[in-house]
């Protein structure tokens, strides 16, 4: 019997208020892969992510973790199978940074002593580069620092979940949105490290260049459909960019034949001049 993928969805669809947000999406998440969802606003990226992590019930199709339908997995066990880094999260009360990160540890995992949990927490804070902020109050942090706190929380959850479930999926919804360049690179490097340990990663990124550098597979969404799936080098082409994103930005390669990159370009076409 072939090993089951960490996550598989078949013919996934989601309709609300008569609007089709996701339609006919089938994909699998294998251990040690990093797939990046790209697509314009309203393409259904976030909805697909919420369907995959079990937060939304699909109106058609199915999602299964290691062959088990997600609808039948209780919330506590699902929490050991996957973690989700949200785009932004307001914390309603003045929790300290370490306390917020520790929420990812509480009640998750088996056979962890207090000392084990402490070690996981410190490791996660270090990896997210916020160990020095551990005692600070979360609401007083900058947006980027807050994002790193949640990353630490997700790291905690994955580490604790590993004591229960062998394979795990990590979902990231625009993890780099509020980060400076150094922390963008740091967080994606950390994610890549996780991938190397066998975590299957699905991330939404708006920055196509970052997507091209870190993804082993790109998932291109448009109008709720998966319009392309493949290695960045294979699918990032001029026509895809103009078809899906509606801009004529050329795709270049450095070195020639290597990783693709996209260069923003101002094209003056057909009297559509912004000058004047």
């Amino acid at each position: 019997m072939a090993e089951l993928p960490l996550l598989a969805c078949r013919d996934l669809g989601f309709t609300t208020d008569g609007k089709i947000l996701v339609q006919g999406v089938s994909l699998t998440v294998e251990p040690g892969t990093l797939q990046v969802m790209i697509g314009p606003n309203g393409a259904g990226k976030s909805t697909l992510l919420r369907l995959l992590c079990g937060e939304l019930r699909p109106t058609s199709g199915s999602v299964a973790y290691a062959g088990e339908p997600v609808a039948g997995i209780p919330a506590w066990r699902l929490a050991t199978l996957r973690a989700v880094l949200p785009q932004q999260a307001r914390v309603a009360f003045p929790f300290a940074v370490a306390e917020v990160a520790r929420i990812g540890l509480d009640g998750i995992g088996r056979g962890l002593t207090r000392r084990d949990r402490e070690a996981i927490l410190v490791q996660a804070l270090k990896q997210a580069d916020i160990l020095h902020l551990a005692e600070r109050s979360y609401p007083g942090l900058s947006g980027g620092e807050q994002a790193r706190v949640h990353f630490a929380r997700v790291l905690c959850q994955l580490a604790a979940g590993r004591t229960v479930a062998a394979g795990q999926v990590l979902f990231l919804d625009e993890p780099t949105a509020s980060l400076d360049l150094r922390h963008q690179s740091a967080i994606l490097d950390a994610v890549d490290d996780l991938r190397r340990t066998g975590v299957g990663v699905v991330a939404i990124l708006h920055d196509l260049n970052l997507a091209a550098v870190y993804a082993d597979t790109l998932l291109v969404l448009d109008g709720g459909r998966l319009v392309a799936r493949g290695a960045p080098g294979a699918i990032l082409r001029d026509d895809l960019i103009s078809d899906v994103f509606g801009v004529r930005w050329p795709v270049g390669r450095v070195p020639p034949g290597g990783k693709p990159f996209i260069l923003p370009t101002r094209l003056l076409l057909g009297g559509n001049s912004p000058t004047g």
Partner: protein
Amino acid sequence: MRARRRSGLIFAALTLLVAAVAILSVGVGAVPIPPSRILKLVAHASADPASARDALVILNIRLPRTLLGLMVGAGLAVSGALMQGLFRNPLADPALVGVSAGAGLAAATIIVLGDGVLRSLGLPGPLPYAALPAGAFLGGLAATLGLYLVATRSGRTSVATMLLAGIALGALTGAMTGLLVFASNDRQLRDLTFWSLGSLGGASWTKVAATAPAILPVLLAVPFLGRGLNALVLGEAEAFHLGIPVERLKRAAILLVAVAVGAGVAAAGVIGFVGLVVPHALRLVIGPDHRRLLPAAALLGGALLVLADVAARLVVAPAELPIGIVTALVGAPVFLWLLLSGQRGFDG
């Protein structure tokens, strides 16, 4: 490590406070009884007829009153903390789930119309006096249930809808209570006023026995709710990602709060500020972690309400003040002070 030792110290202090306040509450009152006698009475209900009155004062007035105060105070404070966690808003208060509004309207209805309705049905009056607390309790539950149904669509409860609907319900019950006030006579009006100001004066073992099954569940649930509320602080979706059965948690919290606050209102009238101020004050001292906040709120809430009751019955003895006046007189300035001094509790 230091934080853990600190919170251990705080819990020890709170437990001592509860014990000290309980002893004070049993030890003082309008009837002067020496401590040595109290000890004897509590240890073995003395058969000495000369101390029969003292025995009654201690065993049937002060003890049930103290227990009722501890329970109601703990129930209100824990409910406040639960509501603040559930609504992710430090200004939330148990009244938000409509309990007080519903209970108030039911009480007004019974006070103003009860005897008249009984008479028109040809039944002998007056209403048994258990009708008022029982009606208030049911009114509170009915209001919460109504709000819950309004705010729940296809299995998901929107706390924002519930909050807004709660404001509408408050206005509606306020207007209906106003109508009843208009229809009331002078005596009923004063009854209504005193009822709405709250008092532990009617405490009895019967009341304790009737109230305990409604308030104890919320207190016993405390160890199981902290983690879920902590996760909920990040948002409902995030809490679900962290393994919390969010809808079940919301349902349980709302039900527990409605039952506990309903019973508190039924037993002691409307007592404000305990549910709002106690969790606030504690957050400043032991932080917002609900696993510490909830049990601490139970202890401090119980202690403060009993302390307020001691003040209520000593200040103008042998008469007594409505306890709602004491909690609001003390609670409102404390709340203002928290607002002005401790921004941490609000905006961080």
